[in-house]
């Protein structure tokens, strides 16, 4: 068992040890959040001479470390049961990349100088690239990986430039120096814009989102879970660190930009998720939607903070932070559940699944919790952050900008639409995969997940339930981070059973009462019906208005379920359809939906790059004399430049 290359060694030893490490990280970060107050800093004698690595643990990084530890513990447990040989890259190498990926995310969150941050950021991008392309024999996966690498690096360049601007001429690259640097409004805005583009590209903010629905589904499921659940959060962390901690929020216009991008991403992601037919792509688009919600919260918070309404800024920021935590839990869980489905059925197309609740009861039950949570339904955790976000929208009329005031209620409506659409999407996701009749005969041989996979899923499900029922904990932890960033914190209501972020007379919510009452009433009703009436039951064929035979093909397909969305939001899609004629003997229905951003933005850029390269290649004549001439001219130019000054 303990031979280093064997799958059993990797699976049953390395991954559980990784999970223990994650739990330790979670406990440490949680201890720091609830007990310590001052930031802890360490200087490591590593790195280049005169350029040591700085590490800093404060409330913001501790909050994100908590997210990382909590979710990755569940993912690692699941991965211990998931990876097996014969699927692309050997498990041993995969295990190495996986843990490097995990460690680099932790270092990104802890880094206290731009140098270490960028090194960890790039390690994160590279290790995840190798994880995405673990099935590298499939051409689509290779090209998805390439697209991911490209976008990751474009983003990294922007972040690097942003750090360059923020050092403000001091040439000190520690974050401490940047905190103290005073930038002119113009340069601060430049740094903010670069950071927004860089971190936005990593987070999958529209219009930098195109890599996300390609790369996340291509990876093995635990890796998809890591990328969607955790890696996107490092981008959120980066943006918060830069905007609030390093640049100290100057302008409400930044908030409007982030808010608009966030709302648009949310709606865009939800609409596209509704028309997907591949279960992992659907989840990837849903990640774009959730990132949109998080950015909406950040944007609102910037708006409030720049207008000196710090308590409301803290409220919106808490909503964003808690949503980041929630999303890491339920999105990881759903990606892992698709992994179990994939192993059990070899299918990832929604059109070939169905009825799995009867063959995979464990996965179906746990995935139901994740589905309800991500759909933003009380009493689970997804609702908490969405409720807080809507609460913070309520206070926007207090902003001192008349026109923004009148527009922002529409933003709240867009948010409500997004959240409700997310529920639509998740009903589709769960209903088509787990409910109904199996759409392929082979599905009846599907087997349930093994015990390690169940353990991983249960861990994440427990997180969803605990945060949903006891949101005070999350609000308290987020409060420490908001106190650091905007100097205020939303206090959860002193009574243990509810949260009332601003004042109990204004709004309060109690997940524990929700769950308690629902469970009690279900129990009482059940017993009452049994006692007062009876419990007789017989099994028959489904009625369905008396139609004589029904096949699995009469259910809604994934396309069918998305049809109302295609009908209503047609303007968002680039749609190509081939409809069969009425007297076709073998009717075939084909549809292709494309993102408009590909045609409008990315294809032109992709076409322009080679043209530009061709134009520049004129300089490369290939003759030595000409190159010498270039050197001579450059020297001459430099000489003139130096003498001139």
């Amino acid at each position, binding site marked *: 068992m303990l031979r280093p290359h064997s799958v059993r060694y990797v699976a049953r030893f390395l991954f559980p040890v990784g999970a223990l490490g994650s739990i330790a990280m979670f406990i440490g970060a949680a201890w720091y959040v609830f007990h310590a107050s001052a930031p802890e800093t360490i200087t490591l004698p590593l790195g280049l001479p005169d350029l040591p690595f700085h590490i800093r643990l404060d409330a913001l990084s501790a909050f994100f470390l908590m997210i990382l530890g909590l979710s990755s513990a569940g993912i690692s447990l699941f991965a211990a049961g998931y990876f097996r040989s014969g699927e692309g890259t050997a498990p041993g190498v995969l295990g190495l990349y996986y843990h490097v990926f995990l460690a680099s995310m932790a270092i990104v969150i802890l880094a206290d100088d731009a140098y270490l941050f960028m090194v960890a950021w790039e390690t994160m991008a590279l290790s995840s690239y190798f994880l995405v392309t673990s099935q590298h024999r499939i051409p689509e996966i290779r090209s998805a990986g390439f697209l991911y690498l490209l976008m990751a690096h474009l983003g990294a360049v922007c972040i690097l430039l942003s750090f360059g601007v923020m050092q403000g001429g001091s040439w000190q690259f520690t974050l401490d120096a940047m905190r103290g640097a005073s930038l002119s409004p113009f340069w601060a805005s430049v740094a903010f814009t670069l950071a927004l583009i860089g971190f936005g590209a990593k987070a999958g903010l529209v219009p930098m989102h195109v890599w996300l629905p390609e790369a996340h589904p291509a990876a093995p499921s635990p890796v998809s879970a890591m990328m969607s659940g955790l890696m996107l959060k490092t981008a959120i962390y980066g943006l918060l660190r830069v905007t609030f901690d390093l640049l100290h929020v100057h302008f409400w216009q930044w908030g409007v930009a982030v808010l608009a991008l966030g709302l648009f991403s949310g709606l865009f992601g939800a609409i596209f998720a509704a028309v997907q037919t591949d279960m992992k792509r659907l989840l990837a688009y849903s990640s774009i939607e959730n990132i949109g919600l998080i950015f909406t919260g950040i944007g609102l918070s910037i708006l409030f903070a720049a207008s000196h309404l710090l308590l409301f800024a803290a409220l919106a920021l808490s909503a964003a932070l808690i949503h980041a935590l929630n999303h890491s839990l339920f999105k990881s869980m759903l990606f892992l559940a698709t992994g179990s489905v994939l192993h059990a059925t070899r299918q990832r197309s929604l059109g070939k699944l169905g009825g799995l609740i009867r063959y995979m009861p464990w996965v179906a039950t746990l995935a139901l919790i994740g589905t309800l949570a991500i759909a933003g339904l009380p009493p689970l955790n997804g609702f908490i952050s969405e409720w807080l976000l809507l609460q913070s929208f309520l206070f926007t009329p207090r902003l001192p900008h008349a026109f923004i005031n009148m527009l922002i209620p529409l933003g709240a409506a867009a948010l409500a639409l997004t959240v409700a659409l997310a*529920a639509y999407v998740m*009903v589709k996701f769960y209903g088509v995969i787990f409910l109904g009749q199996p759409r392929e005969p082979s599905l009846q041989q599907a087997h349930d997940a093994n015990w390690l996979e169940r353990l991983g899923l249960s861990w994440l499900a427990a997180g969803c339930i605990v945060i949903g029922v006891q949101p005070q904990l999350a609000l308290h932890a987020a409060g420490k981070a908001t106190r650091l960033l905007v100097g205020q914190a939303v206090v959860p209501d002193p009574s243990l059973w509810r949260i009332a972020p601003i004042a109990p007379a*204004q709004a309060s919510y109690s997940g524990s009462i929700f769950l308690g009452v629902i469970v009690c009433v279900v129990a009482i009703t059940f017993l009452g019906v049994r006692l007062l009436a009876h419990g007789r039951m017989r099994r028959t064929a489904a009625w369905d208005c008396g139609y004589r035979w029904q096949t699995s093909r009469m259910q809604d397909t994934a396309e069918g379920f998305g049809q109302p969305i295609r009908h209503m939001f047609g303007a968002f899609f680039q749609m190509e359809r081939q409809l069969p004629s009425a007297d076709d003997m073998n009717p075939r229905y084909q549809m292709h939906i494309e993102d408009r951003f590909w045609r409008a933005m990315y294809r032109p850029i992709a076409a322009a790059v080679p043209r530009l390269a061709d134009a520049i290649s004129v300089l490369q004549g290939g003759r030595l004399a000409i190159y010498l001439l270039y050197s001579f001219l450059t020297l001459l130019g430099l000489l003139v430049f130096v003498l001139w000054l």
Partner: protein
Amino acid sequence: MALKFVPFMWQFGEVILAVALAPLFAGWIGQCRAWMQNRSAPPLTQQYRMLRKLFKKDVALAENASRLYRTAPYVLFATMVLVAAITPSVVTDLPFAHAADAIALIGLFATARVFQALAAMDIGTSFGTLGARREMMVGFLAEPAILMVFFNAFLLFDSTALTSLVDNYSTHPSVIDPSVIFAAIAFVMVLLAENARIPIDNPATHLELTMIHEAMVLEYSARHLALVEWASSLKLFNYVCIGIALFLPWGIAIHGANLIAILIALAALSVKLAFCGAVLALIESLSAKLRIFRAPEFLAMAFLIAVLGLLVHLLLGANTNA
């Protein structure tokens, strides 16, 4: 010490009242409709008789029905009972009222809707999935509109907690903002759509092209069907009570619960319910069922009316401030 449990007693009484009255209210609407349409009406107790009959019958369950399908009716019923516990229909001094504000109630309705849609998809019949899809569609269109209504209430009285709203409305009867009228119209439109009433859905038909709610519950029978039907009449009752709390709160016992105040509140509630039922029946008798793809227009209209109310309020507010 005994005094501490008194609010819980009122709380319990209010929930029982809602659960018991909800079928009666649905019966009352049916009776009004029948009168207006010149038909002879079924007795007011028709709904109770139907429930009793259904509880007596044996459940006929489809062979492939899963546990989710059998649990969903109980969950639906439980969520609606919870909404009834939170909505102040008789007194405002309710212990559970602080468990949720109006926005959390939207979430609770969404929970019920999602459970019903999932249960409808469980057997895998064509009608079930069709109903689930349509129900979710109506749901996501209705949510922005209802949110705008609550936004409006927040702008007026700085709260989304229903009990505070009732207190404020009834103690400031002079504050009749024009935006309230817009909000009320939008609320009624959402109420019709969310409760499967004409013009979005017809509760009295099983015509496949038009049905939404009925399509979802086609496979249910006996006690499961009874619970689903009870839950949907309770949902209608709750919606009307929320509407009453928002727009017609007078009479609700706001200064703690004593016997006289409760009696007045009960009398007021019955008058208001009778009135609202008649109005709903009138609206349903006067309008025709819309095609399913006109539903987005209907709900977009509700949304726009609510936004108009907001803008009216903000513009008037800007005027008075200046």
